[in-house]
């Protein structure tokens, strides 16, 4: 036995065992498609790990082929299938700023309503993913059903769905074992400069997976109230910019955190752009989050970041 293990790495408990390098993804039941985790396992403890996106945008923003503004908006929205409205809005705002257009209050209100609707649907999708990861079938079914209902809902439908949404939050608060499963897992402190969006906001409330769950539920509630006060949600579309040139920059608080877009416009065409997303920062946190954790806890910690592989910019 000693000869077999004498040159092997030593575990935290002092035992010398085989360490395995095991991939999780890019297609794995508890993770979003396109995300690949590679863990070094000592038993079912994780001694190290890293995450890579196999679905992120591959086009270099600085030297991509020049396209007209409308095509660029469609391109960006379709490249981010988990948050198409947010990135459509981001592109519209950046292009309109480059074109020197002023804010139109009615348009802004309708766009914001669409953004908040997407935030609700996205957070519900994340809840369904958490349910899948934890084997919590009720949550998966309930959250994914609500997600589909909210995705294209108008204001009247929102009012109808309100009780179901409130009931979901109440039910999660009363679910035995859920707190034990999430509390203290994947702790991130406010000191980290890479935190964005709900992950950053949850850092003030404990910074663990449990805090991130309640942060997203609070955001669902806040978005709901915003939509009730705003107009009918409307998919962002570009206003008439003509053949102008200029540079524009916009920031949108997407469901996963702030995304920033800077672009150069030349005669109504997008010449170059630079995109910064929350997931590009969050994916780097994985290594620190999983080290020394039990496998199940490590996967919960990664899942609580709500990484979208498409929103990871190389």
């Amino acid at each position: 036995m000693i000869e077999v293990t004498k040159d092997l790495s030593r575990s935290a408990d002092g035992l010398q065992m085989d360490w395995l390098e095991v991939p999780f993804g890019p297609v794995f039941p508890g993770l979003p498609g396109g995300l690949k985790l590679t863990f070094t396992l000592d038993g079912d403890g994780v001694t190290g790990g890293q995450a890579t996106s196999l679905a992120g945008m591959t086009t270099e923003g600085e030297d991509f082929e020049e396209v007209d503004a409308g095509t660029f908006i469609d391109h960006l929205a379709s490249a981010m299938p988990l948050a198409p409205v947010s990135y459509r809005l981001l592109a519209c705002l950046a292009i309109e700023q480059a074109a020197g257009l002023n804010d139109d209050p009615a348009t802004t209100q309708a766009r914001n309503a669409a953004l908040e609707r997407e935030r609700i649907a996205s957070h519900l999708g994340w809840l369904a993913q958490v349910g899948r990861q934890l084997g919590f079938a009720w949550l998966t079914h309930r959250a994914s059903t609500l997600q589909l209902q909210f995705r294209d809902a108008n204001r009247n439908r929102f009012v109808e769905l309100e009780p179901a949404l409130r009931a979901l939050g109440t039910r999660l608060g009363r679910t035995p074992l859920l707190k034990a499963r999430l509390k203290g897992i994947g702790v991130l402190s406010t000191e980290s400069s890479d935190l964005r969006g709900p992950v950053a906001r949850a850092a003030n409330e404990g910074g663990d997976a449990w805090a991130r769950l309640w942060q997203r539920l609070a955001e669902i509630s806040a978005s709901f109230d915003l939509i009730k006060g705003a107009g009918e949600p409307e998919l962002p579309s570009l206003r008439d910019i003509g053949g102008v040139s200029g540079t524009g920059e916009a920031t949108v608080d997407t469901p996963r955190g702030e995304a920033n877009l800077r672009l150069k416009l030349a005669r109504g065409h997008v010449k170059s752009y630079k995109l910064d997303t929350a997931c590009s920062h969050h994916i780097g946190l994985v290594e620190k989050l999983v080290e020394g954790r039990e496998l199940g806890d490590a996967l919960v910690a990664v899942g609580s970041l709500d990484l979208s592989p498409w929103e990871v910019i190389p």
Partner: protein
Amino acid sequence: MTVAIVLLTLFGSAWLLAVIEGWTVTGRLQPAAPLLSGLAHLGRESIVPRSPDRVFFEAAPVLLLVVAVLGAAVLPLAPDLVIADLGTGALFINAALAYVLVALIMAGWGPNGAYAMIGGWRFLGQLIAYSMLIVMPITAVAMRAESLVNTAIVGSQADLWNIVYQPLGFVLFYIAAMALAFRSPFDLPTAEGELAGGVDAEYTGVRLAVLRLARLTLVVTLAAATTVFYLGGWHGPLLPPWAWSLIKTLAVAVSMLLAGGYLPRIREADLMRWCWTLGIPLALLNIVIVGLLILVVP
């Protein structure tokens, strides 16, 4: 004849559970679906992973099925409807079901895959957590019956079922039985979201069909054990004894199947901690209470 009836009951119940399980997942009641699914598995290629331990890989699903059937062999459906009414029947169930661990370790080790191997070893930890909570409540049940013979244990509940006489023991046994059957929220060895199926992950075709049948049969066996130990076995008005055993067994099995969907999977460390720091003291308390009741109440 008795063997045929018990086997028919066992596999018939497993089929019914599969129908109900499919109903909860798809929302459609399809009685033929488990049979069609089984036939489809038979027609599919049974892939053998690279460099497996062939003996372990092939034997594990069969062993799990044999273990489930062996456990059921000592459980009476009616006073004269039991395959083997052993003098140590209550202990035999425990001994037979200990081989669930062996089957899962083999299923984990055999395919030479990381997910399966972790799943198999996880069950070893799970066994350390739940095993005392199987044995200790059975001890209290045998104390009341003053026998380890399962028909005598059912007979001791003619006036008052054990679920009323020793409710604490029932709760502990029920939870431990779910952990033994590795049903959600104790599905650590299979954990779809963590291990992509774990011990099931590398099985396909006919082997997977046998494994699934074995898992459902195990649930039925444990539900039948719960019926015998706590729900008065065949006792009940109007209907024939076997019908009461069947109804109670199915009710317990369905509850085991459905309850897990409303809870997230438990952490292995929490399961271990709660079983040893809370479960075992409660099981001891149950034995003391039952002992006092036996002494005090005629």
